[in-house]
């Protein structure tokens, strides 16, 4: 029997395969929800928002709104037959205000009309009076009155206080880390179509169809099976389409059921930015003890975040900030305190990294500060503090780091990027350059993979093979550009040993796979890849049973290879076997299921194993600042990142590039500004600056670590890749700190907050000069 290579099929795992929709995206034929042909009689919806940050609505007269031309229905809290709540779990996110408003942008009513113009015009006729209450908009104001969404949390290991007192050297510092708007290019949108018996079908741009389904049913007062949610693709998600889409799906569904007409709700960009939550901004402070080499001997970390008006996912997000307060460094005696403040601003939510970036950048800042104090290269201080292998390997939450490759990645990258040589050259450049200063930094990333809420780590899939051998693939994961659908299709193609072109990728729908988790926490291909593999293996086992019996052949003599099936010495095409199996009355449809093993976490004590494994990477960034204007530019970035045995290197490298750029935006140009009344003043791309193509580094070198292999039995030993690269951008911020430090001859502590906008850099330079 011949033994053709397993990789002969098109779309095998571990091979580059371009995104399944790439050809459609460059022709404008990939269909987003707003592109779906609009059904007959469709209504357009507009959401009216609170104009006060904290107030009681004393009067809301909507009679003129109801009477306005083209209006089909006006919805308020009174029109909700079920529960007035669209929160993920806490029960504190009313769909419409019941009188109390707690942020500017909170929905108070919605109008569905024949046209969007009519809906907007009608909404303006509302007469709303407010009785204003005192508002607390930011961390400082909420801290002053102790307004929180939940109790402060403590994660600790060893005896931080004692260790600090015994430490040879001690240093304190603090800084502020700004938030970030998702700015997905496709804004929030839902298209609800009424079905018979009061049911509803919703096209929703969401990362979490099951939760949207559950909450729409909850609002309608119907069982979950009355609602179907479907999403083929999103025009970006980044975490912003995890909890918030439920609001828009529920409003449009409510209107659709009431009017028995289809209803589209597509947010205007400004409304989207005002009405939906963002990345949490953080205040970070530390008290660190260290020896003369820079080894950390004890540390207390305090983090405070702006959660906004409701709980949303803030507990888990702030937990993840605590989980990443160590990054790659062993902290023998550590106490991490985390305060979660309620504010009268929009409820902050998931965003790529989910709190991890805010926790991680803090410890990187600590290392920079310690290195400056003892006059060492921060790289040396980093290397000294890295987790060990078999020793010094317990995280603050009690989990052992068993897959540590940080040191090897850092050493390799420092060498390939010529970090040390360039650092010397930069110091020489700065000594001779009066106004332009350069900086360089190398920072590692260790990011924990799994939802820290253990039960979410499950996934389902559904695979059919039709008699002609074509395959229909469905799973609970959603596609937002990350290439999940492509990767899972590769897994199925590999298992059946057929070209990936024979595997039909289909829209995510709650009607095919129930009770799914959000496509979030970088878990998409880990979870759904395994679930699809399980489904494929079940069908394959039935095909083997059938062939073994029909051809009187031992099962272990039947193999699938390169679009063919070998039954001992007999060879047949895959589709011949499926045709025979159909005639032989074999079921060629199966569900698949997966739950992540090994993980267990006790939130009360903040101890356990919340993560199945860790992802690693490192980046070196070189920047230049103009000390007269604060303008700054990333000159070069080198990245070495590991994705285990990558399922699809070209897609994974794309995630690394994009994650890094988005992280760079968070730390440099993207600044959210609320005024004293609580109004977001940066609510359009004209005032909120996401990176443009001229902002990317002049030189950007990205390598996947070729030794990568997951020590855990993940899907084909790959690793998750969605979020970890975001934090590679820490190198950019630390390089900016280095450039600013040059102004004080690297002796004065740099006070610079994130984002390092030109204004911030300029102020930091002025501050260093003043104290130099």
């Amino acid at each position: 029997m011949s033994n053709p290579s397993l990789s002969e099929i098109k779309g095998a795992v571990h091979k580059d395969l371009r995104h399944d929709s790439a050809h459609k995206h460059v022709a404008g034929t990939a269909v987003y929800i707003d592109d779906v042909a609009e059904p007959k009689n469709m209504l357009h919806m507009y959401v009216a928002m609170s104009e006060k940050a904290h107030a009681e609505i004393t009067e809301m007269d909507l009679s003129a709104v109801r009477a306005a031309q083209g209006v089909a229905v006006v919805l308020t809290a009174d029109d909700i037959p079920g529960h007035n709540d669209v929160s993920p779990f806490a029960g504190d996110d009313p769909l419409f205000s019941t009188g109390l408003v707690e942020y500017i942008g909170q929905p108070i009513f919605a109008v569905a009309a024949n046209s969007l113009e009519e809906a907007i015009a009608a909404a303006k006729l509302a007469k709303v009076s407010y009785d204003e209450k005192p508002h607390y908009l930011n961390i400082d104001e909420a801290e002053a009155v102790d307004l929180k969404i939940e109790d402060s949390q403590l994660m600790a290991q060893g005896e931080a206080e004692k260790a600090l007192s015994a430490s040879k050297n001690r240093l304190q510092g603090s800084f502020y880390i700004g938030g970030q708007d998702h700015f997905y290019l496709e804004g929030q949108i839902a298209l609800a179509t009424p079905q018979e018996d009061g049911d509803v079908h919703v096209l929703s741009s969401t990362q979490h169809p099951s939760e949207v389904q559950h909450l729409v049913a909850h609002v309608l007062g119907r069982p979950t099976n009355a609602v179907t949610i479907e999403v083929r693709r999103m025009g970006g998600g980044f975490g912003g389409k995890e909890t918030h889409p439920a609001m828009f799906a529920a409003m449009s569904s409510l209107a659709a059921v009431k009017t028995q007409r289809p209803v589209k709700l597509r947010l205007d960009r400004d409304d989207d930015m005002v009405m939906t939550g963002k990345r949490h901004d953080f205040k970070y402070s530390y008290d660190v003890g260290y020896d003369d080499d820079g080894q950390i001997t004890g540390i207390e970390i305090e983090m405070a975040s702006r959660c906004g008006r409701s709980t949303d996912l803030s507990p888990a997000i702030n937990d993840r900030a605590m989980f990443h307060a160590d990054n790659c460094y062993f902290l023998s005696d550590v106490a991490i305190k985390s305060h979660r403040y309620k504010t009268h601003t929009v409820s902050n939510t998931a965003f790529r990294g989910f709190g991890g970036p805010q926790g991680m950048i803090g410890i990187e800042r600590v290392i920079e500060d310690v290195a400056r104090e003892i006059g060492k290269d921060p790289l040396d201080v980093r290397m000294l503090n890295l987790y060990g292998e078999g020793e010094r390997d317990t995280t603050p939450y009690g989990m052992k780091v068993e897959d540590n490759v940080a040191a090897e990645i850092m050493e390799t990258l420092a060498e390939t990027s010529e970090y040390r040589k360039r650092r010397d050259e930069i110091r020489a450049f700065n000594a001779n350059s009066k106004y332009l200063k350069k900086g360089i930094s190398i920072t590692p990333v260790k990011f924990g993979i799994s939802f820290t809420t253990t039960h979410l780590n499950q996934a389902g899939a559904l695979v059919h093979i039709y008699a002609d051998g074509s395959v229909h693939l469905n799973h609970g994961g959603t596609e937002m550009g990350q290439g999940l659908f492509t990767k899972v299709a590769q897994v199925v193609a590999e298992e059946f040993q057929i070209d990936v072109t024979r595997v039909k990728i289909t829209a995510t729908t709650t009607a095919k796979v129930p009770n799914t988790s959000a496509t979030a926490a970088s878990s998409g291909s880990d979870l759904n890849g395994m679930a699809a593999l399980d489904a494929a293996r079940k069908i394959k086992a039935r095909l083997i049973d059938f062939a073994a019996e029909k051809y009187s052949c031992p099962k272990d003599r039947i193999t699938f290879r390169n679009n063919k099936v070998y039954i001992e010495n007999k060879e047949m095409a895959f589709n011949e076997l499926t045709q025979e199996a159909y005639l032989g009355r074999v079921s060629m449809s199966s569900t698949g299921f997966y739950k992540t093993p090994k993980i267990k976490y006790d939130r009360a004590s903040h101890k356990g194993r919340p993560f199945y494994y860790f992802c690693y990477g490192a980046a070196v960034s070189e920047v230049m600042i103009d000390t007269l204007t604060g303008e700054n530019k990333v000159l070069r970035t080198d990245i070495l990142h590991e994705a285990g045995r990558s399922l699809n290197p070209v897609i994974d490298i794309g995630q690394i590039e994009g994650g890094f750029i988005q992280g760079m935006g968070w730390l440099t140009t993207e600044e959210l500004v609320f005024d004293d009344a609580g109004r977001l003043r940066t609510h359009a791309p004209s005032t909120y600056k996401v990176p443009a193509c001229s902002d990317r580094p002049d030189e950007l070198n990205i390598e996947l670590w070729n030794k990568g292999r997951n020590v855990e039995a993940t899907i084909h030993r790959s690793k998750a890749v969605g979020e970890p690269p975001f934090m590679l951008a820490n190198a950019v911020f630390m390089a900016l700190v280095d450039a600013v430090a040059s102004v004080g001859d690297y002796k004065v502590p740099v006070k610079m907050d994130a984002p390092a906008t030109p204004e911030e850099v300029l102020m930091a330079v002025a501050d260093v000069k003043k104290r130099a």
Partner: protein
Amino acid sequence: MASIKLNGQRVSVDAAPDTPLLWVIRDHLNLTGTKFGCGVASCGACTILVDGEPMRSCQFRLEDAEGVEISTIEGQEDSAFKNVQAAWRELDVVQCGYCQSGQVMAAAALIRSNPKPTDEDIDEALNGNLCRCGTYQRIRAAVHLAAEKMEA
């Protein structure tokens, strides 16, 4: 009733004169390749060509479209556009894709006017086309590749 020349054909549109062309194209003419991103001409998702020049259709009014040639992604057939598409596919530029019809429209326009663009030329031409997935590295590489394909 306005009459405009779109993708080489004259079409009649029953819409108010100040209607942004974006909505004329998407809602009245059912061409959905042009996307709504921000509505204030700051993101580039709605890029069309007006007499061959990239324009933001969300801020271009129907009444200003008389006497000019409008073209959308659906009407692109020349070799510059085909080479841009091919380069984009080859380098797997696209992630979520929402901005990309605007990106390829702007990129093809650049190559038509400047067959051998430098990195700086690319930055200048495409700076108004935001990509939140951050595919800029590959966009730059793909523009260069498309330019090479034009020469071949």
